[in-house]
């Protein structure tokens, strides 16, 4: 097992290097430069040239790439032009906020998705199945940012039950209840689509397992239906559900971009959007590489979990 994990980690290195090249080239190729973005209307060629020199952007492309990569290997991600603070501080701050939001949404989608899928499969064509299937279809079809805006309108502006936006109350607050209060709407809005996807796939995975011989054997032995479904069948179905969860984790992470914009959640998605608009090259590069590295690691973890569950998967 250790060998397998090591092998997977080593194979992640070229992936990450590839990502650094791609994100660097994209930022170098898109029109507009940070000096123009910072100077705005005052971007005379002379001012732009001076500012580029101050920002170290007057060096050749290849040199800039290797300087950036070299610094990054020593843990130095550089300084954000637009925020005037070290990239790594900003990325870690923002990423922890995203982790709270996306993590909550992920747990919600995994728990409710699997429960809905299992119930639906166990009661195939029954009322519960039909109701769940309908709700799932509805959830998958509503864009999360629209749902978010509607939630703000109803629960924050009209009913005033929940705060509109942000992660903590702006004055006072800052404790756990305050965080939960701010987390409810964005986490739900973010989880809805993913829950639908997980529910659908759990349902079909369960249906397949429930038709297999060992389930019939279990029932014939007199095992209670609850145990048959939740212990025997679900365990077998998890092998096909876990990779879906891995994909949904990526989905929740990328969906967080819209939700963070709508709810002004101080996360990494909103940070990247702002940074791209301001041509904040180092912040975009550092942020993308960091998020990509986390995603790659998470997928390795999913693969490892899967191979633990199912010994047939070659290690």
């Amino acid at each position, binding site marked *: 097992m250790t060998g397998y994990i090591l092998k997977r980690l080593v194979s992640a290195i070229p992936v990450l290097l590839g990502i650094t090249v791609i994100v660097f080239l994209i930022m170098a190729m898109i*029109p*507009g430069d940070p000096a123009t973005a910072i100077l705005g209307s005052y971007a005379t060629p002379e001012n732009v040239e001076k500012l580029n020199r101050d920002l170290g952007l007057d060096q050749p492309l290849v040199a800039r790439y290797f300087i950036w990569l070299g610094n990054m290997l020593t843990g130095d991600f550089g300084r954000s032009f637009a925020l*005037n603070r070290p990239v790594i501080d900003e990325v870690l701050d923002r990423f922890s906020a995203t982790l709270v939001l996306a993590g909550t949404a992920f747990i919600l989608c995994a728990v409710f998705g699997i429960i809905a899928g299992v119930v639906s499969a166990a009661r195939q064509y029954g009322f519960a199945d039909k109701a769940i299937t309908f709700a799932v279809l509805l959830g998958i079809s509503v864009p999360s940012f629209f749902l978010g805006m509607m939630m703000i309108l109803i629960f924050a502006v009209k009913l005033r039950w929940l705060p509109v936006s942000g992660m903590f109350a702006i004055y006072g607050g800052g404790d756990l209840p305050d965080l939960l209060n701010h987390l409810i709407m964005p986490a739900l809005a973010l989880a809805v689509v993913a829950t639908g996807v997980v529910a659908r796939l759990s349902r079909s995975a369960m249906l397949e397992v429930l038709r297999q011989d060992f389930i019939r054997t279990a029932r014939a032995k007199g095992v209670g239906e*609850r145990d048959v479904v939740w212990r025997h069948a679900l365990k077998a179905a998890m092998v096909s559900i876990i990779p879906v969860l891995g994909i949904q984790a990526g989905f929740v992470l990328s969906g967080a971009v819209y939700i963070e914009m709508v709810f002004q959640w101080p996360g990494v998605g909103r940070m990247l959007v702002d940074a791209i608009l301001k041509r904040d090259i180092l912040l975009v590069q550092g942020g993308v590489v960091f998020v990509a590295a986390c995603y790659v690691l998470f997928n390795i973890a999913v693969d490892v979990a899967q191979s633990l569950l199912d010994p047939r998967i070659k290690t």
Partner: protein
Amino acid sequence: MTQGILNWTRRGVLAAGAAMSLSLGAVAPAAAQTPPGVLIVGQIAEPKALDPAAVTAVNDFRILMNVYDGLVRYKSGTLEVEPALATGWEISEDGTVYTFKLREGVKFHDGSDFDAEAVKFNFDRMLNEDHPYHDTGPFPLAFFFSAVREVEVVDPLTVTFTLNAPYAPFLSNLAYPTGLIVSPAAVEQYGADFGRNPSGTGPFKFVEWRSNEAVVVEGNPDYWDGPTDLQAVVFRPITDANTRTAEMLAGGIDLMVEVPPVSLSEFQGDSFTVFEQAGPHVWFLILNAKEGPFAEKAVRQAANYAINKTALVDNVLEGTADVAAGPTPPAFAWAYNESLEPYPYDPDKAKALLAEAGMENPEVTFYVTEGGSGMLDPIAMGTAIQADLEAVGFDVTIETYEWNTFLGNVNPGLEGKADMAEMAWMTNDPDTLPYLALRTDAWPDKGGFNSGYYSNPEVDSLLEEARVATDQDKRAELYKKMQTIVQEDAPWVFVANWKQNAVTSDRVENFELQPSFFLLLKDVVKN
């Protein structure tokens, strides 16, 4: 058998529901009122830094103007300078030496003294590449003071600025945020991190900056111009305009700036007050006077007649702007030519002018931006302008670009690429825009912003003369003459002057918007 599952399911649903309502119930009532004495301001973005020399955005200025003072400031409600940290000044006969008397007994928030050495430190840091703290930059707007040759300390309360040449906008540039005075002791202590640990002399002291959440400042009880009644101000960045509107409606913020035109109707009624203030802003179309149809003055004038500016400001901008008459916004009251009437909407006249120029259906490429500082609603405006021009015979092709790309295309000049382009400027002196964008010596190849290659020797000499005249009446006369000529020559289509807006809740009193577009909160009361 199946009964068991159904039971479990029911129980499960009940349990989940109970858990949800518990977690909802456990949390404090959400829509907590903001506390009295604490003003919460909805900003449009996270500030870049709180170092006035290092920033360029109006969004950042809104905070800075409350934490720092300059040597001079704009008199409330005008764009004319009055004393602030300087109690008075003298200008030498030839207009190159400015001597300032400084206010006595003023201290920075960190406890250090404000004096002539501090003033010298500020300008040397920005302008002198050998200054030990020049590396706390970059200072993108340092060229506002590029006319300054030397700053000298005469005595602790007297400082002189020697300029390379007479430069009339100097005083008004000092009133701009780039001229705000920072504490040298704090710069020495924090170095490059000064922008996150600011210290000035202003009515509010910096307390904390929680990244992407809030900048908090508190009242300075020792303020030289009388302390504020506010206990604290919290600046909250809310980049999404819809979310900002929702926060205002829900009572999460007390004051909101830059309300989107479409949201203004939400704030009618007694619980909100909407403020409007015309500022030194002009929205125009640059016309390529070097080549193509707009090389003809008659065609440029035809475009000015063809576009229904009243419909643009009333319908597209929902009344958040006035029709512009010429290149200088009326907010510069002292320099604005009142006798100027905007080009009326007259499609027949436009058609006649086109016929006269022998071009019934000129083909025109039109650069439109997706957004950008001061650009208002550029896509909708671009489309409406296209329709108006086509109605009189123009054949208009729109090319749309994202803001930074757009600037990269427009600033180097329109030659060989386009015939017209949208543009907007916000300035602090009537000199800035025409000097940088209408002179022959400001063509892009000479480093200026005259992207449409307008050239009129008479305008050139008026602008040069106004820049070195130190007498304001004399300057006013020159600018008024310039406006008349430029309006007639029509190097641009003059479209709109933006009115900045803001909304306050009914708990906020004594708020006023300034024509400078700065946000001054010292006198505000929050109940």
